[in-house]
C-alpha cells in the first residue's frame, strides 16, 4: 500500500518559490547534504531499469567497427546486447569466463583454445558456435572491413576444432592474450545478421547477450528486453533495460536522484561521486591504475629532450593539481594503481620545484627554452587541467605554455594520427598492464602516440607478456615503471576510478573493461 502526503496549492507554491530562491544559493555555494545510502534487499526477478549514459552510440553497435569503447557511450549497450565471451575486472584486470567457458594457452603462449558454453544462440536463432566466433574475427582481420581492431588480429589464424572449440594461433607468444580478448574482442555478432546487411548491422545489432534490442530512438532512448534464449553464466533478472542519453553529467545524477532512472554513468570527473552521495545514491566503483595521463611528444622539441619532460613532471604537484581539476580525487599511485601487485606505490615522479627550475634554466642556457602547447579536448576535466598546467608553470622561469582546446576530431588528427603536438592527454585505464600499457608504451604499440622508443622498455614489456610466472611479471613491470619514471614519456596525473551511480535498490553491479556493467547480474531489490 502506498501513501501520499497531500499539500495545499498555496503550500506547493511556497515550496516551489523557496526552492527557486534557495537553488541559486545552493548551486553557487556547492552545499553538501547528508550521505546515508539505504540498504537494499535481495534482487528479485522482473522489473525495469533505466540507465543514463552521456553520449549516443552514433556510429552504431557493430563490434568490428568500434574502438576505445566508453562506459558512458557504447560499452554498456554492447555489454547488454552481446554479452561477453570473457570479461576483465575493471579494478584488477582479472579475466573471468562469460559466454566462453574457458580460454587456455599452450605451454609457449602462442596457441590459445577457446571453449564456448553449450547451447549458445543469437537472438535471431543462429548458433553462437566456434564458427560464429571465427567469422567475427575473420571479418575484423579482413582489410576490406577497415576495422580499427584489425591490428590486434594481425598474423592470427583461427581454426574451428569442433562446434564449441576454436583454436587461436598467435603470430608471437602472448600469455596475456586472454586480456586482449576480454577487453577488445569479447563482443560477437550474429553472422547471419551481419551477412544479410553488413552496413546496417551497426544500427540493428543482433547478439547473444542477456538483452535484445526492442526499440532505438536516437539521442533519446534504447529499450532492450530480456533475451529468453540467453545461455550465459547468470540468468538475467530484469524484464527490460532502457538506456537514455543525457549530455550533462549533473543532469544524469539528478535524473537518478529523482527516480526517473536507476543508474547513471557520470563520466570521467570523480567529483560526481560526492554529488551522488549528497543525493543518497549508491556508487559502485573500480579503482585501477593509469587514468588521465599526459602524453609528451618525444619526437620533437621541446620534449625530445628528457630534461624538458622531467622538468614539467617535477614542476607539477599532482596532489594539488587533482584537488583543483577534480575535487575529491587523488594523485595516482605509481603507474599501475593502488591494488596492483606490480610496481611500487607512491608518485611516479616526485614533485621538486627547485629541481624543475634547475632543469629549465639549464635548457634555456643551452638555447632550448621549454615553450610548448598543451592540446586537449574541451571536456571540463581536460580544460581545467590545461588551465592549471599553464597557471602553475607560469610561476617558473624559462618556460611558456600555450593552451589549444580542440574538438575530438581535431585531436584524432593532430595528436593521434599526425603527431603534430607537444603535450596532450588521454584517459588510459590500466587495471592490468595488459593490454593498454603495452599498446601505449611499446615502440610498436597501437596507441604509442608519444613516439617513445626504448629497447629496454620494449624488452621488459615483451618479457612480461611472454611469461605466466607472477614473479617474472613483477620483475618486468618493475623495470617498466623504473624506465617510465626516468624517461617520462607519459605521466598519469589523476587516479583512475571507473564508477556507476545508482539507486540503492539496483543491485548486482559488476564493472568490467573500462567500467561497463555485466547485465546478467543486474536486478532490482524487493521494495
Amino acid at each position: 500500500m502506498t501513501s501520499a502526503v497531500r499539500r495545499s496549492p498555496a503550500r506547493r507554491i511556497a515550496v516551489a518559490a523557496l526552492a527557486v530562491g534557495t537553488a541559486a544559493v545552493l548551486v553557487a555555494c556547492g552545499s553538501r547534504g547528508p550521505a546515508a545510502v539505504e540498504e537494499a534487499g535481495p534482487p528479485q526477478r522482473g522489473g525495469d531499469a533505466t540507465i543514463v549514459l552521456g553520449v549516443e552510440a552514433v556510429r552504431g553497435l557493430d563490434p568490428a567497427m568500434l574502438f576505445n569503447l566508453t562506459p558512458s557511450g557504447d560499452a554498456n549497450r554492447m555489454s547488454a546486447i552481446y554479452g561477453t565471451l570473457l570479461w576483465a575486472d575493471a579494478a584488477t584486470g582479472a579475466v573471468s569466463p562469460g559466454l566462453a567457458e574457458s580460454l587456455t594457452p599452450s605451454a609457449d603462449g602462442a596457441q590459445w583454445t577457446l571453449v564456448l558454453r553449450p547451447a549458445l544462440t543469437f537472438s535471431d536463432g543462429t548458433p553462437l558456435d566456434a564458427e560464429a566466433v571465427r567469422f567475427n574475427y575473420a571479418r575484423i582481420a579482413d582489410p576490406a572491413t577497415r576495422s580499427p581492431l584489425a591490428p590486434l588480429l594481425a598474423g592470427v589464424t583461427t581454426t574451428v576444432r569442433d562446434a564449441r572449440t576454436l583454436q587461436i594461433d598467435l603470430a608471437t607468444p602472448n600469455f596475456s592474450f586472454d586480456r586482449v580478448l576480454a577487453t577488445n574482442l569479447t563482443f560477437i555478432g550474429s553472422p547471419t545478421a551481419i551477412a544479410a546487411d553488413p552496413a546496417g548491422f551497426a544500427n540493428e545489432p543482433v547478439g547473444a547477450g542477456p538483452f535484445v534490442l526492442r526499440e532505438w530512438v536516437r539521442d533519446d532512448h534504447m529499450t532492450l528486453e530480456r533475451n529468453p534464449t540467453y545461455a550465459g553464466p547468470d540468468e538475467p533478472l530484469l524484464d527490460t533495460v532502457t538506456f537514455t542519453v543525457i549530455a550533462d553529467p549533473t543532469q544524469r545524477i539528478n535524473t537518478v536522484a529523482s527516480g526517473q532512472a536507476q543508474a547513471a554513468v557520470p563520466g570521467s570527473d570523480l567529483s560526481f561521486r560526492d554529488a551522488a552521495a549528497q543525493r543518497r545514491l549508491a556508487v559502485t566503483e573500480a579503482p585501477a591504475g593509469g587514468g588521465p595521463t599526459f602524453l609528451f611528444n618525444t619526437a620533437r622539441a621541446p620534449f625530445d629532450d628528457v630534461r624538458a619532460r622531467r622538468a614539467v613532471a617535477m614542476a607539477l604537484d599532482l596532489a594539488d593539481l587533482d584537488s583543483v581539476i577534480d575535487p575529491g580525487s587523488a594523485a595516482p599511485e605509481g603507474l599501475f594503481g593502488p591494488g596492483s601487485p606490480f610496481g611500487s606505490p607512491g608518485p611516479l615522479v616526485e614533485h621538486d620545484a627547485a629541481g624543475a627550475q634547475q632543469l629549465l634554466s639549464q635548457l634555456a642556457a643551452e638555447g632550448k627554452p621549454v615553450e610548448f602547447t598543451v592540446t586537449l579536448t574541451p571536456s571540463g576535466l581536460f580544460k581545467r587541467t590545461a588551465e592549471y598546467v599553464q597557471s602553475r608553470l607560469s610561476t617558473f622561469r624559462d618556460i611558456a605554455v600555450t593552451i589549444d582546446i580542440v574538438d575530438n576530431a581535431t585531436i584524432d588528427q593532430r595528436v593521434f594520427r599526425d603527431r603534430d603536438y607537444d603535450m596532450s592527454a588521454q584517459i588510459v585505464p590500466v587495471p592490468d598492464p595488459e593490454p593498454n600499457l603495452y599498446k601505449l608504451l611499446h615502440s610498436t604499440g597501437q596507441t604509442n602516440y608519444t613516439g617513445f622508443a626504448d629497447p629496454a622498455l620494449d624488452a621488459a614489456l615483451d618479457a612480461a607478456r611472454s611469461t605466466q610466472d607472477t614473479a617474472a611479471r613483477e620483475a618486468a613491470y618493475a623495470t617498466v615503471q623504473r624506465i617510465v619514471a626516468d624517461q617520462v614519456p607519459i605521466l598519469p596525473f589523476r587516479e583512475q576510478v571507473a564508477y556507476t551511480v545508482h539507486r540503492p535498490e539496483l543491485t548486482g553491479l559488476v564493472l568490467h573493461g573500462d567500467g561497463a556493467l555485466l547485465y546478467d547480474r543486474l536486478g532490482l531489490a524487493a521494495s
Partner: protein
Amino acid sequence: MTPAAPTVPATTAAAERPTRRRRHGRLLARLAHLVGVLVLVTLAATALVDLLPGSPAATILGPTATAEAIAELEAETGYDRPLPERYATWLGNALTGDLGSSVQSNRPVLEQILDRVPVTLELTVLALVMALAAAVPAALLAAHREGGPADRAATGLASGLLSVPVFVAGVLLIYAFAVVTGWFPVSGWSPLSDGLVDNLAFAFLPALALAIGEAPGFYRLLRGDLVHTLHQDFVRTAEVRGLPRRYVLLRHALRPSSFSLLTVAAMTFGRLLAGSVVVESLFALPGLGALALQAIPARDLPLIQGIVALVAVVYVVVNMVVDAAYAVLDPRVRAA
C-alpha cells in the same frame, strides 16, 4: 431583362494590372532570394567543414587508422574531390529530395532531420507562446501607467531576467521543479503520440527556460513602442473622444506598436529552431540542436548540410511570412 454584368471601370482595371505584376515580381524576387540564400549558406557550410581539421573518413575509421586507409575511404565516398564538384553533386541530389546519408550512422539525413523537427518545433512554439503571453500583458500594463509602480517592477524584473543566461535558468528550474518538488521530469522527452499530458510535462521546463530568455526582450521592445505610440496625436484624439483607456490600448495602440515585436519574434522563432542547443542538451531533448551538436564534431558533412539547409529555409520563409503579416497589420504596407 438580364442585369448587365458589373463592369470594372477601365481606370481601375488598368491600375490593377501593374499592381498584380508588381506582386508577381515581388514573389519571384522572394523566391530568387530564397534560392540564393540556400545556395550561399549550404556552400558556406560545406566550405567551413573543409577548413576544419579532420575529415569524415578519418572520423569513421578512428584515431588508429592509417593515412592510406583514410585516403582509400575518401576516394570511395568522394570526399577527396574538389569542393565545387562535391557541392554540385550534393546540390543535384538535394534537388531530388536526397540529402544523402549520415557518415556516422549511415541513416538518411532527411529521415534523421524529420525525426527531430517535431521536438524542436514544439519547444520553439511553446517557448514563444509563453514568452509572448508574459511579455504582451506586462508591456500593456507598464505602458498604461508609464513610470508607475507596475512599470518600474516589470522593467526591473525584465532587466534582471535579461542577465540570466538560459543554462542558469534551466539549472535553477530543474533544481526547483524537478529535483526538489518532483513536479516535472528532470530530463528527457515524451512524444505527443504518447499522450498530451506526458508530452507537456516533459516540454514545460525546457520551454520555460527558453521563454525566460526571450520574454524580457519582447517586453522591453513592446513597452517602448507602446509608450511612443501612446504619445501620438491619434491616440490623444481617441482619448479625448472619451474612449476607455483599455480600448485605446488594445485597439489603437497595440497594433501599430507590434511591428518590431513581430519582427523580433519571427527571428527568434528561426533562431530557436536552429539554436536551442543548450536547452536541448541540458534537458536531453532529441531535437535539431542536439543533432547539430553531434554532427559538427564528427565532421558529418551531409548531416550538417541538411540541417543548415533546413534552418536557411525556415529563416527565409519566416521572413516572407513576416512581410505578409506587415501587410495585414498596416494598410499602408498593402498600398505600397
